[in-house]
């Protein structure tokens, strides 16, 4: 193996990347989000999407949903690294469980008149997007769905006068009666 002169073994890994959605239940205390984000940046992991909010206020629990990509070995590392943090209760790989629902919400601003405006409304209807703000020359649509659906909607809006998008990132929950 040829490599530049180095005290480290330089290896390229060619395992394919996978996308995984992780649900992380944490103690809601100062700095907990910084710990999680710092872990990802410090160890060179990817964050595709991250959402966080307190979900059980009496127990001070927050739920973080992270969409990340990496080789299977890296994904396994990420889960272990998260799990060993002191304020982390549980880490569940929603992708691996295969029984989860993922949703995100987007607000999409479109500016236009005439045919473009009519077409935007027609498409919004087809995607079950709601109009939450309107002027004579613009709409703001609210749309929920999985990431692919929202991406598709945004792509369709682009030629019709897309101005800007605000997205929440992915939230995920398991199907069936059991909690995580």
């Amino acid at each position, binding site marked *: *193996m040829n490599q530049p*002169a*180095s005290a480290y*073994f330089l290896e390229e890994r060619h395992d394919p990347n996978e996308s995984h959605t992780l649900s992380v239940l944490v103690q809601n205390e100062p700095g907990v989000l910084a710990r999680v984000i*710092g872990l990802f940046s410090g160890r060179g992991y990817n964050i595709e999407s991250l959402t966080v909010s307190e979900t059980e206020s009496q127990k001070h629990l927050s739920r973080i949903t992270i969409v990340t990509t990496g080789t299977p070995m890296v994904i396994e590392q990420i889960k272990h690294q998260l799990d060993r943090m002191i304020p982390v209760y549980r880490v569940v790989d929603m992708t691996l469980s295969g029984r989860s629902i993922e949703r995100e919400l987007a607000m999409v601003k479109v500016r236009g008149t005439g045919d473009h405006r009519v077409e935007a409304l027609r498409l919004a209807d087809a995607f079950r997007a709601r109009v939450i703000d309107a002027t004579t020359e613009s709409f703001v649509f609210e749309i929920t769905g999985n990431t692919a659906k929202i991406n598709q909607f945004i792509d369709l809006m682009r030629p019709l006068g897309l101005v800007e998008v605000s997205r929440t990132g992915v939230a995920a929950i398991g199907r069936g009666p059991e909690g995580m």
Partner: protein
Amino acid sequence: MKDKSHDPNQMTGAAMIVRALIDHGVQHLFGYPGGAVLPIYDEIFQQSEVEHILVRHEQGAGHAAEGYARSTGKPGVVLVTSGPGATNMVTALTDALMDSIPLVCITGQVPTHLIGNDAFQECDTVGITRPCTKHNWLVRNVNDLAKVLHEAFYVATSGRPGPVVVDVPKDVQFAVGTYHPPRKSDVHISYAPRVKGDAAQIRKAVALLASARRPVIYSGGGVINSGLEASKLLRDLVEFTGFPITSTLMGLGAYPASGKNWLGMLGMHGTYEANMTMHDCDVMLCVGARFDDRITGRTDAFSPGSKKIHIDIDPSSINKNIRVDVPIIGDCGNVLGDLLQAFKAEAKRPDIKAWWQQIAQWRARNSLSYRKNNDIILPQYAIQRLFELTRGKDTYITTEVGQHQMWAAQFYGFEEPHRWMTSGGLGTMGYGLPAAVGVQVAHPDSLVIDIAGDASVQMTIQEMSTAVQYELPIKIFILNNQYMGMVRQWQQLLHGNRLSHSYTEALPDFVKLAEAYGGVGLQVIKPADLDGAIKEMIAIKRPVLFDCRVAALENCFPMIPSGKAHNEMLLPEEATDEATATAFAGGKALV
């Protein structure tokens, strides 16, 4: 309303800190005062249960506490001020994190209302130390302080040990609140490290080990961290199975170097027999080690034909670098106990005579050999003599980082755990001298030697002053070649012999330097004088700087060149310039 004025648990935050140290059995505290910790220092002044050791630089306090912890198995405790006090601790905290050393570091912080105002000596201590601690806390309310301090000790010492930081603003130190002794509810319920290994996994491991024809045990620092019982069980396992055993740098001493199954250290500068055994084995039992890149060499060629069993208390160590077949999460001592019991009850010991014959052939290559020299002291020879002349004594060894560290690991034989303190993961030059201070504080009557290099030792040389102040008779044994030897070795091997800034043109006179600090300086140039001088050093009951002038251009072999596997080692007698040039990929021209 209850009158709280006579409640013994009502006290200031500063008093709580000292009380908590006492409640956790802390006898020694390494620190350096400053504005944001003055209330705590005032409390320390007014008591006699905790002895404070004043260092000369906060990094020194950190490494001293590491040496203290590593040599006793107890947590090392540090007290430093805000801002620069905290930032100076970062190297020691990172070092402790990499090597899993339990440290509790208390830092002062500017008063709560000034946090975020860029106040004098303010820094974001919890932000800066978040990635270099196992956990950290900023305490904003005095009534949380007792709980946090107790949790800090628990987190530092349980599971995979590590450093923690408790950042206490000055107003919280002054404020009065309620203290409580340690109790279970102080700890996050989300933190519950697994100690006992899974029985089914242990049975699988036993079945693999029993069917092995070419087994090897590869142990690491986790065995030392687990306590004396783990080392004893490891020895029992080796004795019972008759398997060969090697260890990482951090694991030296868990199995005695004089033991008949000992292969020597493995890895980049490990022995030929250890690395070949790892490469050709069919079953590997890894106990408390983490397949670090200095150990594995090229990972895609690492021990390609073996089934691997990995015992580790930290699940994130499993499958991080090397995929293993039977992971067992748990404390090394606990799992080794169960494994040994299961082995004795269920399985027969495999016949591995042929394997030992093969190993004997590798051993016969004598990979640690070096040519003798009557005119100049070879560094390997110096360590060998130091080892022989301290053999049987109650000795603790610390090191700095570089060639001398590898030679110490190769040529000093460790018979017991907790006797070897070295910066393995982070590779911190300047670790050894303050670590020796910490070891000597814990073991005042023992012989504590820092095997040092001339470059490393200057990074924390100021702690000589600490050693003199507290009458700590540490011995700083400097292998002085005037080079940053390991840097130079890599430049020779990989960078066309362009020795860019690895030579120290001006060195202090170490003898005079020792005397200036109030210690004793010795210098040796001739091999014939070495034994006498080492004996003299041992006899002196004061801090000694021992300037051992060694062959300037000696390099550290054997060695796994970068990008190579365990079975592609470069042995000392083969390390001609030409062979070296060929062995190192990229084919750089070497002189």
